[in-house]
């Protein structure tokens, strides 16, 4: 489908859409929308999904390592390292060999491209301690494997800041904008 298939969302007959972006610069290009989901009656009907205001469980870590971990977030049983840039023919054995130098690997996920069956290009590696994970990241990030540069970092970070008043206000602003959007026939949703 070409760009002709898009709807341009600042159509003259939908002035309410302009409200959505009232706090953004007017010089920015129009958002091109496409898909039946924008017209669906179920679009705003559900209150039970990811956009609900209900509490979502987060894992909150309370170990001594946390203080030194900067923005990195510990997971339930250890620290998860992400490596990307993997060649599609990389094997689990090669990746295990590379990462075992820094500590015992508790877990490794090397996901495959569902269409080709080859390695998708990323892996998730779990270590028990922050130090092991940090050492692995520092050593592997920027290395080459099969001629491709590897990128390596923690997979999880802490939530941006503790929920302060400023954040609550921001969330409230988002919610009030969403409410206004609901009047529109094709609201943007986040």
């Amino acid at each position: 489908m070409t760009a002709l298939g898009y709807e341009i969302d600042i159509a003259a007959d939908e002035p309410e859409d302009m409200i959505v972006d009232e706090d953004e610069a007017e010089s920015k290009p129009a958002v091109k929308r496409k898909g039946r989901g924008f017209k669906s009656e179920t679009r705003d009907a559900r209150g039970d999904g990811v956009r609900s205001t209900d509490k979502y469980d987060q894992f909150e870590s309370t170990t001594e390592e946390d203080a030194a971990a900067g923005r990195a977030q510990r997971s339930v049983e250890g620290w998860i390292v992400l490596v990307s840039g993997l060649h599609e023919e990389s094997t689990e054995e090669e990746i295990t060999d590379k990462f075992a130098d820094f500590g015992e690997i508790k877990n490794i996920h090397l996901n495959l491209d569902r269409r080709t069956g080859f390695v998708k290009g990323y892996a998730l590696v779990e270590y028990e301690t922050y130090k092991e994970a940090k050492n692995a990241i520092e050593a592997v990030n920027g290395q080459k494997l099969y001629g491709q540069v590897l990128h390596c970092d923690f997979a999880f970070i802490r939530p941006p800041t503790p929920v302060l008043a400023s954040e609550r206000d921001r969330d409230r602003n988002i919610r009030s904008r969403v409410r206004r959007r609901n009047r529109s026939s094709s609201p943007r949703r986040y």
Partner: protein
Amino acid sequence: MAGNNKDDEFYVRYYTGHMGRYGHEFLEFEFRADGRCRYANNSNYRNDSLIRKEMYVSPLMMKELRKMIQQSEIMKEDDARWPKKNVVGRQELEIRLGNEHISFETAKIGSLVDVQESDDPEGLRVFYYLVQDLKCLVFSLIGLHFKIKPI
């Protein structure tokens, strides 16, 4: 990553679900540009309860997700000729990437046979594989971070 520039706008949401004997059963996840990933799974079968999980992933993870979406070329597709949602259920895929925003809606897809027999097998195949790759990533993240089997 989560800048104010519209080229940086990024959001991904996938939903699959149906209304049936056990009420509204669904699986849904989303990623925001700031790395917040939410996962919700409601299966009332055998009194299973709603699972809601939230985690923040790093900029490198978000970069990998964005790459996955760009390489799939899903933004070039259109759901106009895809099977319509039905009593078996529906799937939704919403992606905001720069100044392009898609919100596709289609029926549940049982297998590649459904893809082949549709009016737009090439487009639906892009959707079918991207959804599988996204689910695979999310299940790994949930599984490793919370030590639960998401489904």
